[in-house]
């Protein structure tokens, strides 16, 4: 009698666990499933639970393989390459600033060091619209509005917080004795930096570049104010089609998702937990 009771209890718990697991899977993958479904739906009208007809028309259209005015999608290939180029340049410049800045903030006693770190957080701490409206005013005066360099500057501003914060946390996590040991065997400070500190920081620096890259690829608000109507990045095309063309918007969303997932996997491989743990 008692053993049956115990068995029942176990079955109940197991059922609950399975339900909870399914529910969390639904929470995580539900929206993505819907994205995939939408991107291949030729016709999908309410109240049907699945599309009435499916096909790759929107994909072909978006990737510039097919041209048809009927479905209202345009080729995103130019926008994709523009986004990629902006992201790469943003990463290079942001990291060129972030590595020395992060190293200095981590290793030297800089007056108001914490305050400087906090400054980099500013563009992300305030509501972005008012900041970029003001920036548009300035950029228009100096001729940067509506140009790719203008958009790159905005992306650097937004991305630098990841660059500097993760970089400085990474350098901080390297014990100072490792550098002193190098000095004591005859390496000057430059050689110590390139042979000891930099290789040890490499995983963290990679992670921080990936964050900057993804931030730039997904950046919307700044590009919207500064870039439009001349600089059209991938998130811009997504926005302009999201109101009326769910299929096309889903295709772009999936394409935007690919680099993020790729890089997140990469980070997970190389990044040690302590770098993230040492942040702030």
């Amino acid at each position, binding site marked *: 009698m008692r053993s049956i009771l115990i068995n029942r209890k176990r079955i109940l718990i197991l059922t609950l666990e399975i339900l909870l697991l399914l529910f969390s899977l639904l929470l995580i993958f539900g929206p993505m499933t819907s994205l995939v479904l939408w991107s291949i739906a030729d016709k999908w009208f309410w109240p049907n639970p699945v599309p009435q007809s499916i096909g790759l028309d929107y994909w072909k259209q978006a990737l510039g393989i097919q041209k048809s005015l009927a479905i209202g999608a345009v080729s995103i290939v130019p926008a994709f390459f523009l986004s990629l180029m902006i992201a790469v340049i943003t990463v290079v410049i942001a990291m060129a600033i972030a590595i020395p800045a992060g190293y200095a903030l981590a290793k030297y006693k800089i007056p108001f060091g914490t305050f400087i770190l906090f400054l980099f957080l500013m563009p992300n701490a305030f509501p972005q619209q008012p900041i970029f409206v003001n920036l548009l005013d300035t950029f228009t005066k100096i001729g940067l509005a509506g140009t790719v360099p203008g958009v790159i500057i905005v992306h650097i501003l937004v991305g630098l917080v990841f660059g500097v914060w993760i970089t400085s946390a990474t350098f901080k996590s390297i014990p100072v004795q490792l550098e002193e*040991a190098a000095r004591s065997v*005859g390496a000057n400070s430059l050689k110590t930096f390139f042979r000891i500190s930099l290789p040890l920081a490499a995983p963290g620096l990679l992670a921080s570049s990936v964050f900057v890259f993804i931030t730039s690829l997904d950046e919307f608000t700044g590009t919207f104010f500064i870039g439009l109507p001349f600089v059209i990045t991938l998130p811009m095309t997504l926005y302009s089609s999201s109101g009326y063309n769910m299929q096309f918007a889903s295709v772009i969303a999936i394409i935007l998702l690919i680099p993020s997932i790729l890089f997140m996997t990469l980070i997970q491989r190389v990044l040690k937990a302590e770098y993230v743990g040492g942040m702030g």
Partner: protein
Amino acid sequence: MSNLKLLSIVKKYGRVIAVDNLNLEVKDGELVTLLGPSGCGKTTTLRIISGFLSPDRGDIYINDRKITDIPPEKRGIGLVFQNYALWPHMTVFQNLAFGLQMRKTPRDEIVERVKQGLKTVRLEEYEKRYPRELSGGQQQRVALARALVLEPDILLLDEPLSNLDALLREKMRFEIARIHRESGVTTIYVTHDQTEAMVISDRIVILNKGKVMQEGKPKEIYEKPANKFVASFMGNTSFIEGIVKEIDGNYTILETADGLTIHGIGNGIKRGDRAVIAVRPENVQFLPTSKNDSREGYFNIFSAKVERESYIGEVFDYQLKIKNWSIRAKSSVANEKPRGSEVKIYLDPDKMPILIE
């Protein structure tokens, strides 16, 4: 052939004086230990010698060459850290070779010298391993080899054994002493562990609050402490306080407020001075407690009560009470004195230093 000289080194952090007018000379091939509690200035001194801190005042010389303003990488000083500080992204071989590469040593000579260096610390088989694949003791030996392979003028060791467990620490003491003997490199060793200092040092310098309290051979310092701080730092010392009543030939006589008179050895101490007598457990002798002891009335024989007794393996460890004073003592296991018993003890006056407080 290298000696090191520190002349009137002063280092302040804000208002705190970390090193207070320190003079130190280390002769060629000598192993000198800087010994003291944490915050005594020993690590600061080491960092000043290695060049990672610059002194506020004073100068450092190696072989009569002033190095005060020379950057760390040009001082020719080898360093071994408490946490080993091996470079985790390099193999053992690469760790040892790095310094040689910095000196642009030819490749085959590097291979040769790294092999020799690993042989010195008995780790020949490990050159392809990464530091994380080694035990703490092995890592510390690699760190030692990394410093020695460059044949530095001076070797500095900063608490190199304090991250190791007790057994390994004891083994490594002898290992370091052996390596020092074989390499003959002039060495400064920093520790807060008095036993470690006694085992490996040619000379010990005891520091407190940035000042040298005493320096000398381990035996000298242990047997003839210069002051109360040194006596309390070396060995398990108990103190009895009083006033110097008189100086009688070889002996100085101390009288306590509760009426004990104790004979001991005073050094430059005057009648009427406030002083303490330093009693070490090994200098407390238990006497047979028969009633008609012929030595009754002799000096330095006292009645005491056993307050606490603990068995620590090779001996019994006691806390005794003589009037108001607690002293530590020990006896052989065969000669147990139970807690609460009355005992007679003899304090050999030749082994009782009387010190200014």
